[in-house]
């Protein structure tokens, strides 16, 4: 298992570096400009309040978009970071697993004394290591830049928000693992379906406040249980976190079950 993880990490070294740099620059720019906006927060908030509730709900899970928590949630944690990390996680499923199956190199590995479970686990571990590595660096950048810009949000809350955001991305990527595990769809279709579920989840949750009929379906989707403003304020119900963990484990367990007894494709 270790050689598979080692090679996976080595192969993804440059793309991981560029993902880290890209996200870090985005975070740095957005957090550092906050100090210049802070003085005009009241006026800007007044302007933003004139936007329709539907539009506002697409930016954040809080109506107060220019308070330190509201700003950090709307600019980073509500949409952009989960979106970027979901893309990264799904991309990892594709490159580490689906592409290897399509190219035929997965057979090369399974011709060695390595069970399907251990191979899938090795690929999953590689993906987790890359995600958590990039996540840790991004969290560090957020902590440093928010401290510099004077957000005044406790470090532990930023750490918690990053952790839940990573879990959400992992949960979405576990849909991709499930699809490639069962091998029913090609790698592009798996990506498409996963992104579609993630976007639907985001839209349903964002709009449930204004379209009441969405409340029921939204409760079935993971985004509903991701509340970055609550996490940043320290009011998060950690039972939601446990629920997200359980859902992730169930999906990954199903992916393992599917992969164990299916034909390998080329």
């Amino acid at each position, binding site marked *: 298992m270790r050689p598979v993880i080692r090679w996976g990490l080595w192969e993804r070294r440059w793309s991981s570096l560029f993902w880290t740099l890209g996200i870090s620059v985005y975070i740095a720019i957005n957090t550092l400009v906050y100090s210049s906006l802070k003085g005009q927060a009241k006026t800007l908030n007044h302007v933003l309040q004139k936007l329709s509730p539907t539009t506002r709900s697409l930016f954040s899970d809080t109506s107060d978009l220019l308070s330190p928590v509201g700003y950090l949630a709307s600019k980073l944690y509500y949409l952009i970071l989960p979106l970027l990390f979901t893309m990264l996680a799904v991309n990892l499923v594709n490159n580490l697993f689906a592409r290897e199956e399509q190219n035929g*190199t997965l057979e090369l590995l399974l011709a060695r004394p390595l069970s399907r479970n251990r191979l899938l686990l090795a690929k999953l571990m590689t993906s987790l290591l890359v995600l958590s590595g990039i996540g840790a660096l991004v969290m560090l950048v957020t902590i440093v830049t928010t401290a510099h810009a004077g957000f005044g949000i406790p470090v532990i809350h930023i750490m918690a928000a990053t952790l839940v955001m990573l879990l959400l991305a992992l949960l979405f990527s576990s849909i991709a693992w499930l699809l490639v595990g069962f091998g029913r769809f090609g790698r592009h279709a798996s990506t498409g379906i996963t992104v579609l579920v993630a976007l639907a989840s985001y839209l349903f949750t964002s709009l449930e406040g204004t379209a009441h009929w969405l409340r029921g379906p939204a409760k079935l989707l993971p985004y509903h249980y991701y509340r970055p403003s609550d996490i940043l304020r320290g009011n998060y119900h950690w039972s939601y976190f446990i629920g997200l963990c359980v859902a992730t484990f169930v999906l990954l367990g199903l992916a393992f079950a599917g992969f164990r007894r299916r034909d390998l494709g080329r």
Partner: protein
Amino acid sequence: MVRSLLIIGVWTLEINHLRYTVEVKKTPAINCQRLSKRYGQTPRYALKDLDLQVHNGEVYGFLGPNGAGKSTAIRTLLNFLQPSSGSATILGLDSVRQSVEIKRSVGYLAGEIALYPRMTGSQFLNYMQALQPLQHPDYAAQLIKQFNADLNKPIETLSKGNRQKLGIIQAFMHEPTVLILDEPTSGLDPLMQAAFYQLVEAAKRRGAAVFLSSHDLAEVRKMCDRIGFIRDGELIAEQTIADLQQSAAHRFDITFQGPAPLAVLKLLPGSEVISLNSRTVSVRIQGNLSPLFGILSKTPITALEQHEINLEEEFLHYYRDKTEAPV
């Protein structure tokens, strides 16, 4: 009394061990029983009721045209595909339930081998070695030398032949007891093909069972002890190379200086003669070639051309003769 009981105990253990050893040696290295594979709900079988045994120290050639089911059989044996029905064992272990144990003793070369394009040859072999440690690291070095493999360039820049060399080395380097090779000489130049034949011969000498697929009868003749012919997913014929050599027909196009001695040629036992023009004939002859060359030595000829044997035709011909029924 105690001493006698001890002696009896030791004898019983030795006899059991001997029995076990004999059993293991008798068990075919590869054993397929009515192994079938159907993709999804399609009615057509890609592999149907394959019954086949390959023994230790035997080289078995699995022949058939493209799309006949050779790769399906191999991929099912290696548990890359789940059998629809039937079963297979390798070294007495079930190919589905004990696949990981099997792979400790198997070397596999895929048809149209897929490697990691960005790795160098050396990185690739190290990776494979890390997943399955070698018994004798010197042996891998010897193989690299024997095949003159280029280990420093990225695989994506290598020619097909050079990639195939890496595939062969990774399949043989851990000295497996069973070798499963899908079109192993594809892309190799004649010199490397000869090196490969030597490698197979050496594996056979150390008792390995070799199961290889090919669509080239001439190549299989050089390496195999026994061959099976597969068509439309079914094994339609199986025979030893010695039998095939005896039964195989040769076809010659002969141009004579003067008129072709048709009447004499037609008298040759086991021959079919077709006149192409007044001086050229096509002779298909089975078995002993001496009478034909006896005639040719007495009649001046200007050209003699031997044709490649059509594998399927040869097999079907053989089987029509044997069963007197169309296959």
